[in-house]
């Protein structure tokens, strides 16, 4: 017994045993309080560093997840935007459809000729839907052209910008007659209008119905230049087409009068 007491290890072991027992027998509530105090003072730097590293780790993961979600949302947004535009377009077309006294076949453009100015397009309406050759094709903004060939499921549309596509037309204001065709450049020409006719920029050009293909009253475009040249019988008139040929998506084929 005396040997144990004289041992150099005795006192430290006794000391730590007393302290440990005192700590162990403390009520859990006091232990919790002491732990809380220790965690918020002595161990605070380590705990904060640990939390910070956890935050960094989760930030990377969150960043990755959010980037993925952003990507998918961007795609979704682009799809929704496209749907919205299509919706608006169709709404306009529907309203337009109600106004017209024709039976219209809606069609979607499935191919565009790869030339600088679009001279023909392919639409997804053919004989199966009653679309045949030489039928007018319009958009809510005006005449597009006419069908020149149809098979069972598709038709080729000759656009106004094709030199072979000519439309009998007139000025809406004074009924001055002429022919709309494409000669050159970005605009259509309103030809065969006598020099003495009163045609001014801003006048509306519509189809006259005399050509046999396009019915009367379809909007073609607006006069932007009208000049009388000396020594020439006809005026030089340029027309800005109402339809934007570069952003066409859906068109209508006029198959017959609505009451047919």
């Amino acid at each position, binding site marked *: 017994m005396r040997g144990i007491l004289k041992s150099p290890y005795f006192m430290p072991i006794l000391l730590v045993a007393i302290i440990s027992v005192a700590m162990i027998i403390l009520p859990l509530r006091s232990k919790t309080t002491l732990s809380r105090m220790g965690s918020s003072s*002595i161990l605070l730097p380590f705990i904060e560093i640990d939390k910070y590293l956890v935050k960094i780790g989760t930030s990377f993961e969150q960043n990755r997840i959010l980037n993925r979600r952003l990507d998918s949302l961007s795609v979704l947004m682009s799809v929704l935007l496209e749907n919205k535009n299509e919706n608006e377009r169709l709404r306009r077309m529907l309203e337009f459809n109600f106004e017209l006294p024709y039976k219209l076949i809606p069609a979607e453009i499935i191919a565009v000729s790869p030339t600088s100015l679009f001279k023909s397009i392919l639409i997804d309406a053919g004989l199966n839907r009653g679309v045949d050759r030489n039928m007018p094709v319009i958009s809510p903004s005006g005449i597009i052209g006419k069908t020149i060939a149809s098979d069972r499921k598709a038709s080729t549309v000759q656009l106004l910008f094709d030199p072979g596509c000519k439309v009998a037309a007139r000025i809406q204001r004074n009924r001055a007659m002429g022919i709309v065709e494409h000669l050159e450049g970005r605009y259509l020409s309103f030809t065969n209008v006598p020099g003495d006719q009163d045609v001014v920029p801003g006048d509306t050009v519509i189809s006259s119905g005399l050509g046999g293909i396009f019915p009367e009253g379809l909007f073609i475009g607006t006069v932007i230049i009208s000049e009388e040249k000396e020594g020439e019988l006809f005026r030089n008139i340029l027309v800005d087409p109402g339809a934007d040929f570069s952003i066409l998506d859906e068109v209508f084929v006029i198959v017959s009068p609505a009451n047919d």
Partner: protein
Amino acid sequence: MIMPYFYYFSGWFVIMFCQIVISPRLSVAGVFPDFVLAAVVLLGLKRGWETGFRYGFVFGLCLDLLNPLTFGWTVLTLSLSGLSAGVIREKIYVENNIYQAGIVAVMAFIYQLLMHLIESTRFLSQNPQSSVVDSLFIALYTAVISIASLILLQQRYRLRELL
């Protein structure tokens, strides 16, 4: 006069940092190295029982603050680990990394087993077999970390000599 305290504090800070911040991040399938025990045992082996005991006591108190359920037990077991390492140094010390890592492994195993036992008295559902396996893996992992630390420290001395 101040320098020894500075070294004590630096050592305490580094080891606590390793235990609280690094150790959980080195966890492999729930097995993590016990930096504090490795440090206490190695200090006991290198510097004697007083140093081992002192560090064990301080680290034990700090770790007790982290877990109210083992409050008091960690300080007891770690102090005794440091003291035991010092006693081993006096009786059967060999200056060899693998030997020292072996001592660390044995003491880590006993320490972990004791801590599991203490916890299992509270949570009777603990499986004793899994406690032994867990303790064994933690002990081995701690031994590996000890060897790595010893080699690093030796390299540091060599570098200082080179400079």
